[in-house]
């Protein structure tokens, strides 16, 4: 792809993704509206979130048509964040238990 012609995809595709993002957002809103609780709630919220994020990155940001060298350079480093999230979840849980023990 040279920069002059660049990333060109049919407008119809963008409109379909736009519609899909609307539907997915409405679904996440309805999860809250109908008071879905506990594990089902988290599963649905995270699933809709990841689907929306995937569509935006793949289609709107053209990641689906980029070379793998760029795709991996951008998408792999954020996976390190899962380690940080895991560490901080453990840390937060520990802080919570400590507070229960000493401040209640």
């Amino acid at each position: 792809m040279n920069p002059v012609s660049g990333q060109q995809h049919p407008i119809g595709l963008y409109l379909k993704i736009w519609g899909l993002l609307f539907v997915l957002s409405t679904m996440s809103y309805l999860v809250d509206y109908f008071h879905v609780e506990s594990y089902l709630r988290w599963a649905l919220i995270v699933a809709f979130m990841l689907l929306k994020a995937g569509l935006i990155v793949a289609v709107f940001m053209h990641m689906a048509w980029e070379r793998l060298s760029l795709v991996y350079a951008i998408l792999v480093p954020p996976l390190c964040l899962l380690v940080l999230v895991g560490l901080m979840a453990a840390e937060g849980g520990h802080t919570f238990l400590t507070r229960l023990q000493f401040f209640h």
Partner: protein
Amino acid sequence: MNNTATIAATPLSPTLAASGWRGLIADWSSDRQAFHVSWGKAMMWIFLLSDTFVFSCFLTGYMTVRVSTTVPWPNPSEVFALHVGGADIPLLLIAIMTFVLISSSGTMAMAVNFAYRGDRVNAAALMLVTATFGELFVGMQAFEWSKLILEEGVRPWGNPMGAAQFGSAFFMITGFHGLHVSAGVVFLFTVAFKLMRGDYDKAGNYQIVEIAGLYWHFVDLVWVFIFALFYLW
């Protein structure tokens, strides 16, 4: 400009290359291309990667204070409800903001399409629509902040509804995102203006529109995570 490197690298084998500083410079200036996209696009992607880490740290920090507090977390569904027609509709304002931002992403994607077809009038018009959606979003956020600060008494160090950390996480995360939206609006207006003036016609290279688009879609992407993790969790 083009992907095929036209400059032939000096055919020096590593063993023959100079040692010391000269060798270092020779090694690092070998005219290799890794990504095969323009410099501007690669740099925007790398900036967005760094920004991903910034927002992830905010959201991870928010998760940490939320799981570690023994005071109940205020229910965002009720905090951000709107009073419409005699009833409280939960999270209504946030839902509208979400749809506005998604729509702005749709118009931006179309703007990039028109720009690459050389239709600069429609491309600039769609960029202005995108920027207007962005302004609408920031306006609604200003309304949301005023309501929370003036009517609900939420402060970064406390609030009447529950855990004190609610305010600090809220102002930090949504504030930084709102700053990104505002900067994006300025960026879009600038590029749209230059596009209309014909600044990119001489080179026939309209990639700046796609690069601006990458930034804008990223702002939408971050909101997807904020919407799910802060407002719905």
